[in-house]
């Protein structure tokens, strides 16, 4: 049986983990990290909940069922970033705004197409990882140790 301390610490760690993931994602374009790493960190936070608290608790507390949707949305974002420049007459995945032009800033974050692509990667990795963790954790009836 998992100790109370482990359960508490695990539960408390989820929010900071997601925060770190968000930071890695947002800062990725200027600093260490990228969407893939951010997605993995976030998924690790969720995995910790599964290991420490058990599937029932996690499914009750988090929107796990939406994970496949998140993954597919991420993939769609990636494909859209690929396809939109083609529709506009450019090369696939062409950078926007073009080199030299100033991008739109939100604080110190630059809004550019590559960043949106990275967000797509993040969503896909997080969604796919959580989906796989959930199906692996859902054991068939009668297989309880």
């Amino acid at each position: 049986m998992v100790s109370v301390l482990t359960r508490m610490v695990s539960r408390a760690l989820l929010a900071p983990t997601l925060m770190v993931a968000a930071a890695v994602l947002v800062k990725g374009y200027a600093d260490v990290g990228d969407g893939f790493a951010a997605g993995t960190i976030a998924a690790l936070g969720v995995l910790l909940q599964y290991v420490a608290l058990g599937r029932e608790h996690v499914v009750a507390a988090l929107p796990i069922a939406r994970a496949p949707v998140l993954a597919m949305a991420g993939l769609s974002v990636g494909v859209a970033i690929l396809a939109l420049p083609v529709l506009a007459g450019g090369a696939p995945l062409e950078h926007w705004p073009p080199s030299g032009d100033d991008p739109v800033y939100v604080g110190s974050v630059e809004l550019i197409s590559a960043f949106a692509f990275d967000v797509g990667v993040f969503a896909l990795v997080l969604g796919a990882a959580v989906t796989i963790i959930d199906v692996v954790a859902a054991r068939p009836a009668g297989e309880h140790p």
Partner: protein
Amino acid sequence: MGLGRRAATAAITTAAGTLLALAWGWSAGGGAVDVAWAPTWDLRLAFELDGLAALYGGLAAAVGLLVFIYASAYMPRHLDHQGRSRDEAARLHGAMVLFLVAMLGLVTAQDLILLFVFWDLTAVASWLLIGFDRQDRGARLSALMALLVTGVSAVALLVGILVLRAEYGTTNLPELLEIARPGAAVTVAGALIAVAALAKSAQVPFHFWLPRAMAAPTPVSAYLHSAAMVAAGVFLLSRVHPLLARSPELLDALLVVGLASVAVGGLLAMAADGLKRLLAYSTISQYGYVVAMLGIGGEAGAAGACFYVLAHALAKSALFMTAGTVTEATGQRGLSGVGGLGRRMPLLAAGSAAAAAAIAAFPATLGFFKDELYFKAALEHGDLVAVLAVAGAGLTFAYMARFWCGIFLGQARGGEPAAVERRLVWPVCVLGGLGVIGGVIVSPFADLARDAAVVTNGAPAELSVAYHLDARAENLMALAAYATGAALLAGRRLLAAPLAFVERISDRVGPERAYGVALRGLNRASDRLHQLEVRDLRARVAAVIVPGALLVALAVALTPTAGAYVVGAVPAADTPLVVALAVCALAAAAVTTVRGHLALVLALSGVGFALATTYSLVGAPDVALVAVLIETIFALLFVGVFALLPRDALRASVARRTTGSKRVRDPVIAVGSGLVTTLVVWGALSRPLPAEPTAQRQFEAVDAAHGKDVVTVILADFRGLDTLVEITVVAVAMLAVTALLRARTGRW
């Protein structure tokens, strides 16, 4: 209208359209398409409708059209006999059209790599077609045999092409013909290409797959084994003939193989009882003629070969269809079960008589001229070949007479034949009629063959055929061949015992046996290797690291090591690095000694985190981040798995001691592969890193891409397409895992 009938209609329309397009294209003077395919490899999608392409493409389309019509009536009956759905015919018609398309691509391709692609496509289509009756184990094995014999030999074709490319830097055939000079490279490449072609044309010693392929439904045999699949082999020889002609030894070898095939195929056809089997042996023998003529080479050889293919393909597909119709009408598959059908199926008898006469080279058929050209070429090459040519032609005469007379003359046997659709008869008459028309008005056929011969010969070629009522050598040889054939036929009771002996010998020690032995041996070796690998988890790990270590050790042994493996001084600034590496080594040593599962996982994580520290110390923070993440994932996953496993199993595995040979084997494997890894890493790090212009350019472009972290910019921007593909793989993996595990739990 059922699926099968719609597919048949579509196939017939496709073949008719192809034939019209080819006729139009050829009358317009041919044409060429040349589009860049893989520019970095200098590959082009180069197609040209030249004389050779017109001949073989036209044959594939014309015979295809008639065979598809025949199949539209044959397949429903075939499927009804076996109690299968008529819709399954769609699969056959689809594969037939695929074959037609592959054949057209093959004959028009001007780039050898392109040619190879279509070559393999024909092999795949033939596999689908021969194995059409997939509930029948014999048919499946026959299909596999055809695929293996023609597919494995196709590797020789590819190697030959690459030899030419290595030597001359191009795979474009017209360019190669310009620059290739006689020499070892051309001979080796030519020999390799010839092996593939001979296997495809079912020539000795690769001939054994063709009789087996008769397991296919009759329309498949009528198409693949007259005008398409086997024709592809001699087509390839014709296509590269100017190259082959640069080494006389190759041509001599072709002549020998061709004559041997004439003899083997002819003798086995004399002995065979099955209708289709007899025709299959006949095909081996007939393409032997063509190969022999290509081996003779020169103007006469090239002209003879091209004309022969044309005359033979038309007649042979008619005979295959005859065999199918006879079997449908009487239920009999062998000569011993039929007889005297001539009066009861007069139209079929007439059509197939014309076709058989064409193959037996009767006057007033297209076939007469094929033998005239054959004799002419043989005479040019010498007396021995001329004698063998007459003997071969006599054999052909004899087995063709045996086939036709056995079915249509003599005592009526096997009861009254059932009525069959007209579509099972008139395609035979059309093809037989073409042979007779060609015997009277030969010039259109001769022109088509001449244009192909020009390509085959690589030089202008003349082809003149006509009836000459005089005592010239060709006419005398034809008469001698008829006489030989008649004598063989008259004495076939005497021949029965030796022929049966030949058949038995070829079964006992022939190449088919070698094929069987090789296949079984490979299967056993593969099974043994598999069992060795999957015996336990450690064997699986060893199966990866032992071959890996051997390969790496080989590379280390072959690489010059001057300047490597030097122990230098350690600067003070590197102390953190040394400490991190020492921790790493300690943790690794601990892994080999701890016994508890959790302790093991923690020790492994220790190795990983110490390595991550090392990465960050040598200035690779992105790699360090990934390493930390992976270590964390694995640690958590292990803990999660332990939580899922039964406690007793875990305790039992901790208590279990390694025993026996494993006590020695596992440490030896571990230490050995570790040593090799150390050697290669040490050696690689002793060298200065080569300057990478790409990396430098990417560093410089980061600013223009509005980024500051080069790794992220590469992933999300420069190589974004790769990343997209990778995340697509992740998505597919997610779907696969979900599908598999949800199916297991019975929920969805």
